[in-house]
């Protein structure tokens, strides 16, 4: 029995060594984005948004940082839906995690504020 456990542990260690470790977890991002690009329906957009939401949720439990651009893209879709307050939270998270994005994110927030004011007028 001890022997069996020993071999099982050994096998698991061997397998762990074989699994290529990636920097980030992307889930089904590429597939849902492809489907959305092919057919820009609301349904496909929601599916893509959900895949991004899942990346944000799952990455910390895998001890990985949320990939570059993911917070920003999620915030962008929220802003397009008119949910500016929630969108800005994700833009801030992008800046916190990737400080080099600050200049672009600030420009983006500025532009989105202008379009928000245009909508409200």
């Amino acid at each position, binding site marked *: 029995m001890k022997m069996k456990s020993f071999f099982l542990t050994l096998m698991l260690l061997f397998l762990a060594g074989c699994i290529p470790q*990636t*920097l*980030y977890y*992307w889930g089904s*991002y*590429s*597939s849902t*984005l*492809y489907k959305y*690009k*092919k057919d820009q329906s609301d349904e496909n957009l929601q599916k893509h948004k959900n895949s991004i939401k899942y990346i944000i949720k799952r990455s910390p439990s895998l001890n990985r*940082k949320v*990939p*570059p*651009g*993911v917070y*920003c*893209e999620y915030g*962008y879709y929220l802003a397009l839906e008119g949910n500016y307050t929630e969108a800005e939270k994700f833009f801030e998270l992008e800046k916190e995690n*990737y400080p*080099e*994005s*600050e*200049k*672009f994110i600030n*420009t*983006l927030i500025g*532009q989105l504020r202008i379009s928000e004011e245009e909508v409200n007028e």
Partner: protein
Amino acid sequence: MNRIYILLSIGFLILMTGCSINTATKSSAFPKIYKEKPVNILFLPPINLSTAPEAKEYFSSTLSETASETGYYFLPMEVTSPFLQSEGLYDTEIIGDNVLPQFKEHFDADAVLITKILEWDKAYYVLGGNVTVSLDFMLRSTVSGDTLWNYNGRIVYDTSGSNDNLLVSLIETAIQTAAQDYIPIAKEVNRRVFITAPKGPYHPRFDLDGEDTIIQKP
């Protein structure tokens, strides 16, 4: 006995000469990227030079995921694309050197990634099929205008089934070629090209991979 070894050695040497490949270290192939150390990279819209219009979508959908593994910060393509359009910078094919500083100004990008799809050819034959994909990537500095990294990759991916039964194989091939998921293929080609790029600041091997070897283009 010795003669056999000598013959085998000669045979091996001939074989090696026949399939000799040129290798180079990353630091000797791409010295400028080690000097400039870009962090923030902007994707420019892929240029599709292949005969398959659908190739652009397959390719652009898989770029973010595969590029991020290099360890640089890539600005999100789905957010930057509308901005590039509004600034009149979307038509990558006609963007000249004088435009490069604008990417620094508007996006704070240290470099831009220019991507070209050279081939996306699907071939079908009686018992199978394949797809040949070839890509060319170029990273250009928005500060110096220099090419920091350039590489291309080509892959022939077998899309045929492996059934001994002729009739079943024919049906399988027909189904697979119609409903083939090209996303994994596009990812694989991207990965093969990106693996040659010196690692960026978010990668644990940043600035440590200068002596890694890559296969040089013929």
